């Protein structure tokens, strides 16, 4: 009998490549796929064409007021004229350099997070969650180092949206992690507190919480004690989202096999260290999509502060639309708001994808 010889490795069979190959494979693989592709293509052209024409090609970009606008074309004069209000609300124009500095610092800390090889990325992130909020408060609020104070009631526009979302996100994540750990604690009192907290906040609509914070809370406070409205909204949003975050993180914790806890224990790690070094890095990695979901919904939920009289981006645009001079440009206004939100939310979504790819060590336990 012949001695067994292993067969050599062969290259895989060639597949169709290039643009034409892609088209053939995905759009025109069968006669009914070809018909469907053509119909969908035709519909896209007849629907998308006018929209692009309205929004870009025949749109009016510069002018003084609605008188310069043409019917059947987008009137971006509206945005151009009112941009300051949309970005800063009633924040005094001569002091807007202060939020601008904070925004530049925000970009400096956030943009490198998209590039794994950016130098000092981790230190910037640390600054982003500790120094930036403090510095941002000092600069935007004023009242320190001879900076003129600006009452929070004058903050608004995109600036307010970003402040609410940023503080909400960096506060809700750690609170959520602690609540998730607490809910899985073996100590009944701690577990009870965490379960009650999570179930309470999760079962109440955010609008109710904001109403309670702005209408009911002052009734319970002693006379003369006032609580900043923005701060109340911020606390409401943070606690509300941290309850959601806690459940997302708990899902991750439950996915970690018992063996990981045991290996950590057997090596002599105490509870907090094994959580920080071994369990949480894995659990949080698993639930990145869920965390991104919660963070994005938090960002969008900040628009609800409108109902307690804070003018975030959406609020600023809506209040301008109630001005008779600008009544005819509602579509442009809402499109602008949608675009702003889309840019930030899409950015967060991309970041979470990057993070997932970067942290993937290629297997499950």
């Amino acid at each position, binding site marked *: 009998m012949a001695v067994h010889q292993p067969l050599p490795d062969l290259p895989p069979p060639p597949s169709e490549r290039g643009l034409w190959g892609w088209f053939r494979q995905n759009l025109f693989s069968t006669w009914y796929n070809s018909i469907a592709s053509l119909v969908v293509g035709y519909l896209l052209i007849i629907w998308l064409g006018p929209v692009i024409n309205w929004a870009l090609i025949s749109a009016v970009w510069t002018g003084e007021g609605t008188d310069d606008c043409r019917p059947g074309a987008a009137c971006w004069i509206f945005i151009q004229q009112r941009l300051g209000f949309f970005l800063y609300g009633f924040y005094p124009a001569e002091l807007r350099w202060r939020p601008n500095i904070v925004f530049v610092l925000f970009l400096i800390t956030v943009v490198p997070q998209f590039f794994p090889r950016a130098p000092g990325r981790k230190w910037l992130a640390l600054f982003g969650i500790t120094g930036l909020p403090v510095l941002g408060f000092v600069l935007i609020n004023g009242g320190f180092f001879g900076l003129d104070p600006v009452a929070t009631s004058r903050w608004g526009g995109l600036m307010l949206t970003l402040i609410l979302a940023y503080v909400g996100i960096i506060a809700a994540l750690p609170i959520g992690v602690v609540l998730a750990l607490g809910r899985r604690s073996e100590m009944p009192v701690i577990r009870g507190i965490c379960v009650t907290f999570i179930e309470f906040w999760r079962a109440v609509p955010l609008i109710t919480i904001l109403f309670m914070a702005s209408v009911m809370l002052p009734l319970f406070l002693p006379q003369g004690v006032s609580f900043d409205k923005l701060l109340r909204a911020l606390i409401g949003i943070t606690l509300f989202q941290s309850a959601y975050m806690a459940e997302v993180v708990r899902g991750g914790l439950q996915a970690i*096999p018992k063996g990981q806890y045991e*290996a950590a224990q057997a*090596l002599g790690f*105490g509870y907090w260290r094994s959580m920080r070094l071994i369990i949480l890095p894995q659990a949080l990695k698993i639930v990145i999509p869920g965390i991104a979901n919660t963070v994005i919904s938090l960002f969008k939920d900040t628009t609800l502060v409108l109902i307690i009289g804070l003018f975030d981006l959406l609020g600023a645009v809506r209040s301008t639309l109630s001005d008779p001079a600008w009544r005819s440009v509602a579509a442009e206004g809402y499109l602008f708001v949608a675009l702003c939100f889309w840019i930030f939310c899409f950015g967060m979504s991309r970041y979470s994808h990057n993070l997932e790819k970067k942290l993937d*060590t290629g297997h499950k336990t």
Partner: protein
Amino acid sequence: MNSEEHIIAPVESAAADEDIIIVRDLNKWFGQFHVLKSLNLNVKKGERIVICGPSGSGKSTFIRCINHLEAHQRGEIIVDGVVLNEDLKNIEAIRREVGMVFQHFNLFPHLSVLENCLLAPIWVRKTPRKEAIEIAMEYLERVKIPEQAHKYPGQLSGGQQQRVAIARSLCMKPKIMLFDEPTSALDPEMIKEVLDVMIELAGSGMTMLCVTHEMGFAKTVADRVIFMDGGECVEEGPPQSFFNNPQQPRTREFLDQILQH
């Protein structure tokens, strides 16, 4: 046969300070189920003990009690002079000195092989990083995979992962190593590479407690073999007499089952 005959007198302890592990009258229940029944064991420094028995006999639970991965309800465990009770300080002191290797390796998948070996020495033993790396590379060489140091556990075969797990435990410089069925989850071709590492470790004078079905390993390495069934220690003795001349009918039955093929 009545169960009285099963009970083996505790090993006559030599000078107590030579015994690195002392187990007296250990009892444990899972709910109503009595899993460990009055176990006694004295292990001398450098002694190599193999624990075998059918599944569900409590052998894994027994060695998991020794580093308190399982709590016992009655009896006494003293490891390296420290009494194992509910005091967290004692538990963590014992765990620092007792390494454990699991059936499913339990490597940390988010860390490279080297980082797996560094984590505990740096954070628990407070070893400086540079020194910890030297120690880790030394042990990775000893288990013959220094070239995999920068890979992630998911990129290694089962046998390699288990060898990393052994190295990870050894990096803590433990006085005792516990093995909980270290080869049961491995493909047949990988069992040998892990056993070779364990045999080498046994030769270096490490105190070892192994739960295993590898009877060949027990014959070559063990100083004593313990046979457990139904949460009891049925029989124990040096491998020579244990395999060739088992005293209890239950032991004979078990050995017949596993050695006949």
